[in-house]
């Protein structure tokens, strides 16, 4: 029993070194992509992951990165399983992940999801500029450089920035 727990902890530690190829400061643990690590006596370690966005091309890279990281650490008997339900949410991102995002220059997702209905021309939620901390910002496009981001501009420091949109 103790051994199994140790293996799970070890695997989690290794997974912490696997980062999102698009946002290299975030580990897949920070992102909440790893849902579970299952270990059972005499059985392959099972790593259950979930994609952030349906079409996110980073998932293929992430799967390969997990495989390489585990093999590098001598763990060869494992299985990576992708599940879609329950659907990933930005709520699963860790606080330290959000902090890392901000330092990296990407506004982290707001705590509470505000805009998630199809209603048109809704008032946009206030997003804090990751550079100067002003809330005087404006949405440029709801779609950004990757599926998980929207494009904003700060009216104070005039810098454009990415916002990791609530999902």
């Amino acid at each position, binding site marked *: 029993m103790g051994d199994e727990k140790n293996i799970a902890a070890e695997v989690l530690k290794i997974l912490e070194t696997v980062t999102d190829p698009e946002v290299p400061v975030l580990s897949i643990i920070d992102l909440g992509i790893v849902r579970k690590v299952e270990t059972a006596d005499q059985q392959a370690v099972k790593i259950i992951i979930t*994609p952030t*966005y*349906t*079409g*996110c*091309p980073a998932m293929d890279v992430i799967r390969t990165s997990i495989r390489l990281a585990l093999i590098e650490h001598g763990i060869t008997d494992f299985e990576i399983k992708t*599940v*879609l*339900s*329950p*659907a*990933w949410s930005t709520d699963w991102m860790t606080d330290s992940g959000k902090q890392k995002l901000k330092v990296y220059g990407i506004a982290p997702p707001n705590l509470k999801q505000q805009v*998630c*209905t*199809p*209603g*048109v*021309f*809704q008032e946009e939620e206030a997003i804090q500029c990751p550079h100067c901390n002003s809330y005087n910002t404006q949405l*440029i*496009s*709801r*779609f*950004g*450089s990757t*599926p998980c981001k929207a*494009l904003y501009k700060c009216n104070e420091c005039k810098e454009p920035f990415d916002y990791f949109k609530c*999902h």
Partner: protein
Amino acid sequence: MNSPVNISTSQPINQSTNQLINYTLHLADNTLILAQQNGAWCGHGPVLEQDIAITNISLDLLGQARNFYQYAAELINQSTNQPVTQLTKQLATEDTLAYLRDNREFKNCLLVEQDNGDWGKTILRQFFFSNYQYLLYEKMQYSNDEQLAAIAGKALKEVTYHLRWSSEWVIRLGDGTVESHEHIDTAVNELWPYTDELFINADYETELLHTNIATDVTALKKPWQEKTAAIFTEATLPFPGNVFMKKGGKHGIHTERLGYILAEMQFLQRAYPNSIW
């Protein structure tokens, strides 16, 4: 490398006996064809942000298509005598289903294969489809088929963004300038005849209704029309009257346009079989 799957050649290739496979392929084809069409805007959008928006939507749809094709491939490989395509005797994969089936085997609705036209037509096609897809996935996330429910539940969040974005653009163009109004008005006349098909159950849908696997699309027509009417009112666009409605795509009878889409999309795999990146 892969062991051949037993393909019964006596069965019509467009008609698997397993209706869940047909249904999943229909859902996959809808999203793949629209993704492929929207993708053609890459580098051609009216402004950079909107170029990025339409290609983001394309990527979301492609992701949905991959999920559906992967599931369909799994179902096909589990069954012993399901025809995949006459060309491939290999195990079904998401790629063989996308690249190696012919025109008549595709079960997408006619709407998604209509040409991109101008920005107005692309926007309106997206609005019609997103409006439908939002209502569909809202129901499908409670399907008795766990995998279909999971795919829908996951994609619904993204489709919400698509519907908002395309609704706003329909209003912007309709209630914009004389010229923008003219463009989207023309698009309404061109695309409207392809909307009714969305709300007619194909046989594979009908057969999966009593088990609560498929969503009854006839029930989506009224909320779809209400939403469309509301957006059209704001966009100062007249709600179209009764016109002849076209159908057939869901059963593999397509407009000429699909052949061209497939020719471009499938060329590489047809010319250089099994080539990879």
